[in-house]
């Protein structure tokens, strides 16, 4: 009996400091006419989404809206659905979601729409009938153009280049490579794509493949990596071959993974969208959808500090990707 009553009092004791440590939010109780926006990342600990969240919070503050933020902390595929269903029952106005499982999360997002909640997706889309708009961080053409334009500028629009990809069947990567090839044919007749090598999304393999490329093509002027592990991999190979600066490295990746190589001058530019702006735009779009200023069929969207952005169909475009270089890479921490 002692044991049990002790257990009881312990449970209470555990609960008391927990409640004591909490403080009521300034906004106080639920639904005082304020817009409530829920923001769902693919996963919570990921620096990419932490950066997204920062932008989302800035937008919510600007709008005077309440922001809820939760996401999976493990790989349980049901977590995103559970979080969304929780938000539905607590009566939020807007949900902005990045989908880990496209089909799976669409089930929950459809339920949200049925409950009158406005849904936008960002970063990774749901099925089209499960959301009103997708906030698209970069189109295939946008990424392809940015990669090739940067590489072309670096090597004087003339000479051989090679591409490192994830694997030859990856849909995303193939679309970007196609965009690069189209751009080359249209705009840079003196550039020549000599090889495309897969790295299986592994840095080591990318390094190996780049070393082979450097041996096989002595006139190679640039390596473009269309997958993120490929960028530091290619840079390491170029560095070890003593070709720093002679062979330029350009790729799609996170600035944080490439900072060291960029500063050493091995990698010249890393292409990515401004992740913080993506979170900002997702919240802005969600709020505009809720107050009726953004409607299906719109061709333009006024995104506050980001200016007027293009809307293509049901995609709101964040704009051209950003090039992180030696000059600006220190300002970014994702």
């Amino acid at each position, binding site marked *: 009996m002692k044991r049990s009553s002790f257990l009881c009092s312990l449970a209470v004791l555990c609960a008391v400091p927990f409640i004591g440590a909490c403080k009521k939010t300034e906004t106080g109780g639920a639904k005082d006419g304020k817009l409530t926006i829920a923001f769902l990342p693919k996963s919570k600990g990921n620096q990419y989404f932490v950066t997204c969240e920062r932008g989302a919070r800035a937008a919510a503050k600007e709008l005077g809206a309440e922001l*809820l933020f939760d996401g999976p902390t493990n790989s349980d595929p049901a977590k995103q659905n559970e979080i969304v269903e929780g938000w539905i029952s*607590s009566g939020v106005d807007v949900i902005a979601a990045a989908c880990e499982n496209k089909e799976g999360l669409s*089930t929950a997002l459809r339920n949200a729409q049925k409950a009158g909640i406005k849904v936008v997706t960002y970063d990774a889309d749901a099925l089209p009938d499960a959301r009103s708009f997708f906030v698209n961080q970069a189109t295939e053409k946008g990424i392809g153009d940015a990669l090739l334009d940067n590489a072309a500028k670096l090597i004087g629009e003339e000479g051989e280049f090679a591409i490192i990809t994830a694997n030859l069947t990856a849909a995303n990567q193939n679309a970007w490579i196609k965009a690069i090839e189209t751009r080359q044919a249209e705009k840079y007749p003196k550039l020549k794509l000599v090889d495309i090598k897969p790295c299986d999304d592994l840095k080591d393999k990318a390094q190996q493949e780049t070393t082979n490329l450097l041996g096989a093509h002595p006139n190679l002027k640039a390596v473009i990596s269309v997958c993120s592990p490929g960028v530091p991999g290619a840079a390491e190979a170029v560095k070890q071959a003593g070709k720093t600066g002679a062979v330029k490295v350009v790729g799609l990746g996170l600035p944080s993974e490439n900072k060291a190589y960029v500063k050493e001058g091995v990698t010249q530019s890393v292409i990515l969208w401004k992740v913080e702006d993506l979170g900002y735009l997702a919240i802005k779009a969600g709020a505009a959808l809720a107050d009726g200023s953004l409607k299906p069929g719109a061709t333009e969207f006024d995104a506050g500090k980001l200016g007027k952005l293009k809307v293509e169909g049901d995609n709101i475009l964040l704009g051209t990707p950003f090039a992180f270089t030696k000059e600006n890479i220190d300002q970014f921490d994702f």
Partner: protein
Amino acid sequence: MHEMSSAPSKSLKGIFARHEVVLLLVVALEVLIFSLLGRNFLGEANVSNIFRHSVEIGMLALVMTPVILTGGIDLSVGSMMGLCAVCFGILVKEAQFSPLLAALCSVAIGATGGGLNAFLIARLKLPPLIVTLGTFSLFRGLAEALTKGSKSYSGFSDSFLALGNSEVAGLPAQLWIFIAVALGVYLLVHHTTFGRSFRAIGYSPEGSRYAGLAVGRNISLAYILAGAVAGLAAVIFVARIGEARANAGIGYELLAITAVVLGGTSIFGGSGTVCGTLLGYLAVAVLNNGLKRIMDYELLDRKISDMASELSGLLTGLLLIVALAITPLLRILATRRSRSQH
């Protein structure tokens, strides 16, 4: 440890001595806190969510109870859910089975996998922890191999998805299945000689054998039942998410074991009750859900609801450790006191 007397104790002290009563108070305390601090916690939609989001884990906990009562453990049930979910997806989307037939196949596949565990444990006398650690990897690996790691099946009919997303007679559809499984396991464990033998086996396998119990057969039944119900849980999971993928049920085995042990079942077997497991499951499910509702309070400058996943892990762990540590702690204190009196 917490032997249940068959005749309920009349005294107040006796009532509080029962682990189940204490757990009931813990659950009541959780409900009280969350309804005071949480937003819409007791709203109909949220109460539905509590169960909708957790019946799969609850079902695994129910069938984990007989396994642990026999002194065993089954780490493979979560992976089995992944395998059954994938098989269900393939049967419906590629072999054009009706969802009902595919669901029956899923249960049968689960039972077969459970049978493999049973054979290795009851027949070859291998330790349950090692055997199910092996099948834990094996089943998930098979699921991943069948889908090449990334393929998933979706686009199921609305009538099937209703199993995971609709209400029947005011309750989530899948809760009715859960209630049926709970009743079945309760009757098996507490009201059949077959089921009562689980505790005897866990308490003393050799003794049970000498007493003429079919030890091997009864242990086998516990693992086959666990596998079959994991197959059923997989179907419910797919109906809820709308997608069949190899990662279904990841980590669920540990949540189920947590509920069982929190419910007062000894991890060494021999003692425990199905009611205890249900309350242990409820304590975890309510905690997981309730933290997500505390949207108006902050801790370290963040809304509590924004840290719900992290906090529920932390608090579940704390609850479990406190519940387990208390008996030995009190024993040590008692011996100290009696020593100092001499």
